[in-house]
């Protein structure tokens, strides 16, 4: 479990990135922090692995204040995926994936055989293992970034706008891959994005932030869509826009979901096993 207890961050130059933020994230839960730039979402994420130390309050993992942990060992125990992948350009794909296990003292050979399996887990051809990051496409690099974050089998995965720099088709692909991986591995995921659709897709729980790390609303995607707390949330989730206000029309005996502009959004199936995701 990750707990933010009244944390705040004020930089030496006087700017306050986060005022007063509290949140509990259960184990195996995927929580998405979503907000515009200046909402402090990345700052909050980096407090978990001590890339940023809070000026006030504390961040605890399983009840233990991270301020008391060695930052280097802490970071090696937490997977981290960042925007534009953050791969080391002078290391091959394989060596990038083995980074953390090797830093933790696993033998290179053992780390490599596990890394090859991981490349398949994230949907990459192991033949790419010898390449350098600059020889891969943006989407492939991002997959390597995910494989690297998973390499030491961490309980916690921090993802800082990991799919922000790839085109929409590749992004949708990576998002589906992420859902599949999470179904399999059940990590505790803290995911940062400015894309509300991505947040609703990937988050068990979504935390909407205003500037300064102020929580505008938090809850499951369904809860937020069903009852936006205020106008800020309503405009952020696009409840005002036609795409989110859907109604059902019956066409040739099938129930079609149509948005406010009259565009068909999908087919309404009677609720069977799995509830439809928002």
């Amino acid at each position, binding site marked *: 479990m990750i707990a933010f207890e009244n944390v705040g961050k004020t930089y030496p130059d006087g700017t306050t990135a986060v005022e007063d933020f509290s949140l509990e994230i259960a184990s195996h839960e995927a929580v998405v922090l979503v907000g515009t730039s200046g909402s402090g979402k990345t700052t909050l994420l980096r407090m978990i692995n001590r890339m940023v130390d809070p000026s006030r309050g504390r961040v605890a993992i399983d009840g233990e204040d991270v301020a008391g942990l060695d930052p*280097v060992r802490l970071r090696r125990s937490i997977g981290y995926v960042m925007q534009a992948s953050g791969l080391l350009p002078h290391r091959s794909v394989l060596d990038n994936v083995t980074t953390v296990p090797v*830093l933790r003292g696993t033998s290179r050979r053992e780390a490599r055989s596990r890394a090859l399996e991981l490349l398949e887990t994230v949907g990459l051809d192991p033949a790419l293992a010898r390449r350098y990051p600059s020889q891969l*496409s943006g989407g492939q690099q991002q997959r390597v970034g995910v494989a690297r974050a998973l390499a030491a089998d961490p309980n916690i995965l921090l993802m800082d706008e990991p799919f922000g720099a790839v085109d929409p088709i590749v992004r949708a692909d990576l998002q589906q891959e992420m859902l599949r991986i999470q179904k399999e591995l059940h990590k505790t995921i803290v995911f940062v994005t400015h894309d509300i659709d991505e947040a609703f897709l990937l988050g068990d729980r979504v935390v909407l932030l205003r500037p300064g790390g102020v929580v505008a609303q938090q809850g499951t995607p369904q809860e937020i869509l069903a009852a936006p707390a205020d106008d800020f949330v309503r405009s952020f989730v696009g409840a005002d826009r036609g795409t989110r206000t859907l109604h059902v029309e019956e066409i040739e005996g099938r129930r079609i979901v149509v948005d406010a502009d009259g565009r068909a959004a999908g087919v309404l199936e009677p609720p069977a096993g799995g509830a439809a995701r928002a």
Partner: protein
Amino acid sequence: MTWVLENLDLLGSRLLAHVLQAIPPILLAFVLSLPIAKLIAVRGWLRTSLTAGAGLLYAIPSLPLFIVLPLFLGTSIRSPLNIVVALTIYGLALMVPSASEALRAVSGDTLRAATAQGYAPLQRFWQVELPLAGPALVAGLRVLAVSTVSLVTVGGVLGVPSLGMLFIDGFQRGILEEILSGIVLTVALALLLDLLIVLGARVALPWARTPRRKGARA
């Protein structure tokens, strides 16, 4: 040409002396420049003043420096050690600014990513920052090597044996072949060292010459 063939021993010993005076300052200046550059890269004011200071070092005329140094070092005026020390100073003047720029050019995002993966600060410097600054460092090293090889010749004026002595001696005694062989060997030595550095960099930095995939993003 006959002069050359008759004096191969002399040419060989001058060349060897030249190499022995050139290599140590190149290595010393390169190795010493790295911690200095790392130190000043993080402090803006220090970088500005030290870069200017390094430029001033280079402005010290070489001949007087060769003459003054023995007073500080307690060496004789013809000791090759003077040359080594003086050329290390010039080497630092060249290498510190270029090394500090090389380190500063390493992407901050990549360094942050390395920190996030759990590199300890020193590990990050040796395993990430230094290799990534590699190509730019090599560019600086090439200038350093060639410049040092040519500066060693100045010692010849003071009677410190090197290839420089060949053209000073040849000039005084009117032996054109001796002058020419001094110049040719100096240039050849500089080119050879440069080539070795380039080849060494190819082996040490294989990633730096991989063709970028078309349309791939960094």
